[in-house]
Each structure stands twice: as structure tokens, then as C-alpha cells.
């Protein structure tokens, strides 16, 4: 009952690096109807993850994810710290119960993360939050995994789904988070959190294929 850290470590690293690289972009997204700190908060937190990278306990995927989750929950400020931290924590709990992190495990981890975000922040789908990207992604991944597709194919599809879902938040009115204070004015621009999810999944799909190519080459 101790899944290898391999793919999990790879995915976390891509997320952490992308969050740091997209600090300005994510912040700009959040300044349309929010307060502009989203990129800054994520970047500062994931910077700590990268700083402590080599010292993180990687005896198994669950433990590793839990360590990452503790940093995120404890050290990222704003709304994102508790939400992302809870998501990682719930995913870690699933990972701990698995011998191997395969497609079905990934689906379960995504579902646990989503439930964690809902529980922590009280949001539902349709309220213009990162859930509006995450939930369609989880559904898509669940279907493709059930169909037995390979990881790369699943990821490529997830990236397309995430992007479309993020863009679909444009017409929604924010009902959660700071953007909700602007009422109807939140309509007309996509949710920063949802776009971030799309960017991160696109990046994971991308890097995954590069890794495959490198391994093949």
C-alpha cells in the first residue's frame, strides 16, 4: 500500500513551475473583477514547494502529496491557500490508500479534491470558480479512463476540456469569492481560477508528451 512517487512528483513539479511562471498572467486575470493577487499568492506558495523540493519526503506518493499540501494550505495566502491546500490534502488521502497511481486513482483523486474545495469554500458548479474547470475535467478524465485510453490521450483531451470550460465561465456571474462583490459586472471575463486550471492542465499534457518523447529518444 505505497504507490511510487514517480508520476505524482512529475505532475506536482509541472504545476509548481507553471504557477511560478504565470504569476503575472494569473494576477492580471484576477484584476479584472478581483483584487489581482491570485498569481502572486500561488507563486509565493509554489516557490516554497520548489525550494523545499529536495527535502520533501517521497517515500510514497501519498506522503509526498501530503507534504506538498501542508505547504500550500499553510503558506499560500488569500482564498487560494485553503482551497488548493484542501484539494491537495484530499488527493493525498486517496493516494495513500493506493498501491499504484493509475488512471482510476487519478479520477478518484480529482473527485476528492473537488469535494474538498466544495466543502471548504461552499461553492457549487456554475458559480464562476475553478470548480467550473475542474469538474468537467474530472468527468472527461473519468470517461476516457473507463474507456481504457492511454495517459497521454486522456491528458490531451482534459486540456481541451479545461480550456473550453474555463472560457465558458466568461458568461457566468460570480457568486463566490471577491469577484462576486461586483455583481453582474463579473459577467464578461473568465474566472481567474478556472483559467489557471486550464493553463496547468495544458502544461501537464505538454510536458508529459515531452517526457515520453525523451524516454523514447
Amino acid at each position, binding site marked *: 500500500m505505497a504507490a511510487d512517487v514517480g508520476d505524482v512528483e512529475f505532475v506536482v513539479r509541472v504545476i509548481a513551475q507553471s504557477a511560478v511562471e504565470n504569476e503575472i498572467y494569473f494576477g492580471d486575470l484576477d484584476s479584472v473583477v478581483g*483584487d489581482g493577487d491570485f498569481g*502572486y*499568492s500561488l507563486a509565493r506558495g509554489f516557490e516554497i514547494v520548489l525550494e523545499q523540493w529536495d527535502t520533501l519526503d517521497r517515500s510514497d506518493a501519498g506522503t509526498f502529496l501530503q507534504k506538498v499540501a501542508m505547504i500550500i494550505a499553510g503558506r499560500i495566502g488569500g482564498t487560494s491557500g485553503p482551497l488548493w491546500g484542501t484539494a491537495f490534502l484530499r488527493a493525498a488521502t486517496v493516494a495513500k490508500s493506493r498501491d499504484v497511481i493509475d488512471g482510476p486513482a487519478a479520477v478518484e483523486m480529482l473527485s476528492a479534491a473537488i469535494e474538498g474545495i466544495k466543502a471548504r469554500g461552499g461553492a457549487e458548479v456554475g458559480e464562476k470558480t475553478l470548480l467550473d474547470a475542474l469538474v468537467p475535467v474530472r468527468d472527461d478524465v473519468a470517461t476516457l479512463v473507463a474507456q481504457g485510453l492511454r495517459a497521454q490521450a486522456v491528458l490531451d483531451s482534459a486540456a481541451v476540456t479545461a480550456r473550453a470550460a474555463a472560457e465558458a465561465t466568461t458568461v457566468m456571474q460570480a457568486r463566490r469569492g471577491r469577484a462576486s462583490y461586483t455583481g453582474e459586472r463579473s459577467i464578461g471575463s473568465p474566472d481567474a481560477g478556472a483559467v489557471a486550471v486550464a493553463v496547468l492542465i495544458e502544461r501537464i499534457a505538454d510536458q508529459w508528451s515531452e517526457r515520453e518523447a525523451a524516454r523514447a529518444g
Partner: protein
Amino acid sequence: MKKFVNDPKQFVPQMLRGIALANPDTLRYVPEYNLIMRADAPRQDKVSIIQGSGSGHEPAHVMTVGKGMLDGACPGDVFAAPPMDYVYESVKLLASDKGVLLLVNNYTGDKMAFEMAQEMSSADGIKVQTLFINDDVAVEDSTWTVGRRGVAGNFFVMKAVGAAAEAGADLDEVVRIGEKVNSVTRTIGIALTACTPPAKGSPLFDLGADEIEVGVGIHGEPGRRRAKLVSADEIVDEMLDAVVPDLPYTSGDSVALMINGLGGTPISELYLLFGIAHEKLAARGIAVRRSYVGEYCTSLDMAGASLTLVRLDPEIDALLDAPAEIAYRVF
């Protein structure tokens, strides 16, 4: 960006260091958790009061730590709720036998960080309660919204609970007082310009030369609607029309009136607004008995002002009257 700043990432720590250096006898700075605390805290014979929120609202809350107000303030980065660890560690450092009161301005991020920290410190055996401040009438308050924000009215809650705690009230009594003051406090904000967070380096929104934002909060997000810049008289009318009917404040009431600057508006304009509001309230039969004019809860360098009313009764009046010694001071 035109700011006095070195590395924007060091903006908050360097400000906090300045506060500590200016008040070496009364305050202590704990850099690990962005914590500014009373040098003599925790005192076991007194409820400890902690407030956290994003930075960028100074003097709130890091400059209102001191005798008669907060025991500690643990801010996050600019406009970002403090990381949960900071809150949790602050609670542990300030734990008192009489308990700890957490003041939270009812934003999702702050709420979650403080809730998580309260859970964890309660598990450690610390007696903790949380009080949410939500005085902003610009936000709709219904079951499907996140509820109203805490804005400049938080000053009155801090002042009242600080005075009560200093006088030895127990945790339940301090909470009762805080809830009572919050329940009679209402605020509306108007921005003339957007603000510029140091790490972003440019204004958070564009506002035309003749436009204002009505119903802004304190985080640089836009308000409820955009309007044309009008005279000070008309602006005060708009503010009073939003605030007075909300509680409502009625003829015969005695109130505290605060005109709070949002960071970029000089005190001359604030006093001008104050005079106008005072007279317009008098015309409605509402008597201003306590006055607060200046900066209490800002949004970085945003030009603008908020108007807060607190309905007074003898208990609240006495608590607001009690002395306090904080970093935000003239002498």
C-alpha cells in the same frame, strides 16, 4: 509604479519592521508569521484579540495593535488573506487563559484561514472564538452570496472589544460586545481612482477622468457600479442614502460618524465631507456625537473615501471613549 518600495515581495515585512522600530517599547515583531503583537502579550488575565487580513489597509490592522485594542495582527501579503500557518502560530503565541478572540473581516480567504486555524488551535486546547465583521452595505446579503464585507467599520469593533478585554471582560462578554457593535455599524465606500499593488505595479482597474466607482470595498476590486464624478454634496447624499436606511438610522439616533480616507485622498477633503455629512445627518434628525476623520482602513493609494455610521448607546459610547495606545498616532 510610483511607490517607495524596494523588492515588492519585501513590502509587507519592511513595513512591519518599520512599525516595530517606531514602537520598540510597546510592540514586538515576529517576522516568521508577519505578526505584530503587544510586547506584554499574552496576558493571562485578559482575552487576547487577534485580527488578520490582507495588507494594504494600513493603519488597519497592524497599526492598531496596542493597549486597549488588538493584542496582535497577522497580515497576509497585499490584499491576500494571511496563510493559515501564520494565523495558527499567532494564536498559539497569544493564547491566554481567558481565551482568544479572532476578528475576521468576512472575506472568503480570511474566513477559511481563520476557521482552519481555530480548528487546529482548539484541538491544541486553546479557547478560541471568531467574530465576523460585515459592515459594507454595498454588498448584497443573502443566502446565496458570500455575505457582506468587513470594511472601515471594523475600527469600531476593534476599539470596543479592545476596551472590553482591557477592562477584564471574559470571552463571551467580549464576543457579545463585538457582535453588538458590528450590528449597529454600516459603511459605504466611493473610489475616485484605482489603486496599485506593489507587486502588480499598475492600477487594478481603469477609471475615466470623470468617473467614480460607487460601493467599492478595500481590495481594489471595482465597486457595484460606475458613475460620473459629481459634487461633494451629491456624493454625501449618495452615501447617506445607502447607509441610513440600511440599519436604519432614524431621527433621534445618536451616532459616531467616520469619514475614512482610502489612502490617496488628503484629510482636507475628508473634513470637507465630514462637515457636509454632519449637517445632512442633522437635517434627518440624526445627531453626530463622535467624530472620526482620517485614514482607518485603506486600499493602498486609492483616492476615495468611505462613510461609516455607528448607532451609539451609553455602553458603546463608553467603550469607544476608553483610552488606547497604538502605533497609529500623532504624537
